[in-house]
């Protein structure tokens, strides 16, 4: 199949370089800086700090790495896992292939043992005998008496439990060759304000480290070597980055109802505001955060604040979007700017609140009853969460309409390696068309919904500025002068202009990122946080001889290049994380491209997408087409 070439809209991203065989094998059979391991623990036992210590230390050794927290919707006592992938080529998408598993939770021993790849390693607490039934001949078992050592070294059950985590981190440091100086520095930095804890952390670290060194050949063939591949990068989660974007965009009003996985976005906003927006002398705050009674109210607060001229936002997840839908329609029809962050989790209904998905695409695109359509931005990583947050406020005010930043649990809550965030001090917010008191004074009559330049956007006035700017905002039928109407023509004139407005907006949302490949036989499309897995999959498929042109959609409504990409490929794979192929449906609806040309690859079990899943999907579909 020949595919017509279209212009490269974006250069290849600089960081990931495909390695020839995908998994770099060193001469001695070791796999250096290219492996994955996971730690199975019980939540609420303090393992999170040990896990982030591990990730941080590997990252600080200059080696590309990512961490995925697979945790339960629970505070204490249930199984939880932390997965770390190390990849010298910069591929940091989740991988389901684990070279090593740390089994700290007896309740999940069986599962954890089963998940080690053949030839891999299992690290377990040998304080108690391991169930013989769990033995695998193709796995190397590494027992470290973490519990016994910590009971001897520490007093009090809480400290013993906590320090067991640091002890397994110590064992891993020996087994994987993590730089002890780097870990030590991280511990000292982490507990700078609690020096008492530094000593016990070091004791625990060495318990594990020394035991492993004494009893096993360290390091294992899967091991680390310092690199220089993380310079200029940071380890950052998307919710923190999005919150920072809100601060930098000049948002002053935030309203929310706590919900996983969006909560940490507002937590971070509160933290940053405390740092940057409080007058050190008077204690006065240059922001107002309303923890509302529910998501309906949160949406109402944000819309009220937007109407009165403040940059306002609410972070939420799917259930919140459902509750906010009536208000979203009001803001669309009355043309009020508001920014909504949807950190998607697994639906429907309560679903799996601590698992990721891309299940809200359809409900966001057309949220609310009646004819509506909304601007949506799809960040692929925490860095884009920051930039798209800023962009969202500009678009919301420019187009006077709700704008959704559609992220997900994986982007929002996990630490990603991304380029260090930078800020251009020449940036000024685009506040859109807002008439001033002087302009109003000079006007004969102000008409709120009158579009003078044909872009579908009408100038708005803010309350309290000038009597001539007064108008009545109503979700009921209104004409271009904002006067109540039940007249067919007057009503139609306004809603038809809204169509024009969203058409203009389609040209203003971030353009798709398109990566073309010579000899590509088909296209492949995705959006959001699956990008990491997509880049890896497309590279590996190419290495296998399956060349694909890749398009990452970054905004909705879709602009012309999206439809053009689809039209130019006889077949396009659409990869997404929901059961029903919502992106594929949206593409069909919005571009008119037939479903026979859009081959669906879906993954919706709640874990971040892996490249293997994409590759398997492509191979299966190609085999089907060939047959």
């Amino acid at each position, binding site marked *: 199949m020949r595919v017509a070439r279209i212009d490269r809209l974006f250069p290849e991203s600089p960081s990931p370089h495909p390695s020839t065989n995908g998994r770099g094998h060193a001469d001695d059979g070791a796999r250096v800086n290219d492996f994955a391991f996971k730690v199975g623990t019980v939540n609420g036992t303090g393992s999170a700090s040990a896990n982030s210590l591990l990730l941080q230390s590997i990252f600080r050794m200059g080696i590309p790495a990512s961490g995925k927290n697979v945790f339960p919707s629970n505070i204490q006592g249930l199984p939880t896992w932390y997965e770390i992938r190390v990849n010298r080529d910069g591929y940091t998408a989740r991988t389901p292939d684990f070279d090593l598993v740390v089994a700290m939770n007896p309740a999940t021993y069986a599962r954890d043992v089963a998940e080690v790849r053949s030839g891999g390693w299992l690290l377990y607490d040998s304080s108690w005998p391991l169930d013989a039934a769990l033995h695998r001949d193709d796995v190397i078992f590494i027992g470290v008496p973490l519990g016994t050592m910590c009971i001897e070294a520490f007093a009090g059950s809480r400290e013993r439990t906590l320090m067991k985590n640091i002890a397994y981190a110590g064992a891993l440091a020996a087994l994987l060759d993590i730089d002890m100086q780097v870990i030590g520095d991280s511990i000292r930095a982490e507990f700078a304000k609690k020096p008492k804890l530094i000593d016990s952390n070091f004791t625990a670290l060495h318990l594990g480290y020394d035991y492993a060194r004494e009893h096993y050949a360290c390091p294992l063939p899967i091991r680390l070597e310092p690199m220089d591949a993380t310079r200029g990068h*940071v380890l950052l989660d998307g919710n923190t980055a999005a919150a920072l974007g809100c601060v930098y965009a000049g948002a002053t*009003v935030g309203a929310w109802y706590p919900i996983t996985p969006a909560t940490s976005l507002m937590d971070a906003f509160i933290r940053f505001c405390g740092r940057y*927006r409080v007058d050190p002398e008077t204690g*006065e705050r240059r922001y*107002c955060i*309303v923890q509302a*009674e529910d998501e309906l109210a949160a949406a109402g607060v944000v819309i009220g604040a*937007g109407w009165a001229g*403040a940059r306002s936002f609410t972070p939420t997840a799917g259930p919140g979007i459902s509750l906010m839908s009536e208000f979203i329609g009001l803001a669309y029809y009355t043309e009020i700017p508001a920014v909504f962050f949807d950190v998607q989790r697994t639906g429907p209904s309560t679903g799996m609140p601590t698992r990721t998905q891309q299940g809200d695409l359809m409900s966001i695109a057309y949220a609310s009853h009646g004819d509506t359509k909304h601007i949506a931005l799809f960040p692929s990583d925490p860095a884009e969460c920051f930039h798209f947050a800023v962009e969202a406020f500009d678009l919301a005010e420019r187009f006077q309409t709700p704008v959704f930043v559609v992220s997900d649990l994986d982007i929002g809550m996990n630490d990603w390696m991304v380029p260090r965030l930078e800020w251009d001090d020449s940036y000024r917010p685009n506040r859109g068309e807002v008439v001033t008191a002087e302009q109003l004074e000079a006007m004969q009559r102000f008409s709120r919904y009158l579009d003078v330049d044909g872009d579908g956007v009408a100038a708005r006035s803010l309350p309290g500025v000038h009597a001539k700017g007064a108008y009545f905002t109503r979700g009921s039928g209104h004409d271009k002068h904002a006067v*109540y109407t039940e007249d067919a023509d007057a009503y139609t004139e306004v809603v038809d202009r809204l169509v024009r407005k969203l058409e203009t907006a389609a040209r203003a949302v971030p353009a798709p990122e398109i990566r073309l490949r010579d000899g590509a036989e088909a296209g492949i499309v995705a959006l959001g946080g699956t990008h990491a897995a997509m880049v890896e999959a497309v590279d590996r498929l190419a290495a296998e001889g399956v060349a694909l042109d890749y398009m990452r959609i970054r905004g909705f409504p879709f602009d012309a290049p999206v439809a053009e990409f689809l039209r130019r490929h006889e077949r396009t794979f659409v990869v997404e994380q929901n059961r029903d192929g919502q992106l594929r449906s949206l593409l069909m609806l919005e571009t008119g491209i037939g479903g026979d040309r859009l081959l669906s690859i879906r993954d919706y079990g709640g874990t971040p997408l892996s490249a293997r899943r994409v590759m398997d999907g492509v191979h299966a579909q190609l085999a089907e087409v060939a047959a």
Partner: protein
Amino acid sequence: MTSIAKPPVRHPGLERNELGLTRRDYEGAMSTLCAGCGHDSVTAALVQACFELSVEPHRVAKLSGIGCSSKTTAYFLRQAHGFNAVHGRMPAVATGVNAANRQLQIVGISGDGDSLSIGLGQLSHAIRRNVSMLYVLENNGVYGLTKGQFSASADVGSKAKRGESNRQKPIDPVLLALTLGATFVARSFSGDKAQLVPILKAGMKHRGFALIDVISPCVTFNDHEGSTKSYLSTRERMQEIAPVDFIPLTHEIRAAYQPGDALTVPMHDGSVVRFRKLAEDYDPTDRDRAYVHVKEHQGRGEVVTGLLYIEDDAEDMHALNRTIASPLYDLPYETLCPGGAALEELMKEFE
């Protein structure tokens, strides 16, 4: 129905306020409610109150939800921004408006359906946040726009137009607000403008959430014999705790202190609320006493009216939040963005 603008006729002899404006300058579009609707009297009282307070019309934001009551925001202050929100959700929008621009005088108009059924949660939480706003609840005991269903404020035994009696207990916004810690709670009657106007004025000047439950009869669906929210029934059962005067700061305060058994309550901005002829056992600054008083009289079939409770020194939403005095919407961007150097510094924590 279409919106009908009132012809701008000015009689040269019309009384003018301190801003040189007449009452006509505080009016809005022509009401499309039924002739005799209590809500139109509330509108007239609001016009009077704003006129007397010399409020700059464009400094007011009028907000409402959905229903007959919520239409009334269109019928006063045509020079103010108005906002018909979604049903029962005006308090959240008002909260956002207040968050963004604390200098706007917020007037919220709602009804018993809008506030006590679909919007009960929103009303409760606006009280809890103590958002500075006037909240007028035009209470007629029925759903008017959907033609006569009982609302949550309908009294037990009150008869619908078609004859059936309500058997569910009512939600009383006054008792609710007192329980929730509201800092300004009043009940009035649309047919008693002399009582209503000063309460509206005090409510607009109150720092915090000022709830005024106004019995406002529905002439079409709930003004018949057997209804406890009719004009006749309300007039017969009204028990005013005390007539109230609102004396703004600009007037000579000594006028407030008159001999007799009156009680004066100073407000945060220096104006004064004066209760005339207060019953001996009543104290409008005693929340528990107010609750018991209203409840006792209810038991006797009486409707207690007046400014029932006032606490003007409580912290409103912005005081609780310690928000800067200037409106947030207008803060210079330079004072909001930490800048590139700060980001560079911050990024070191994530390396």
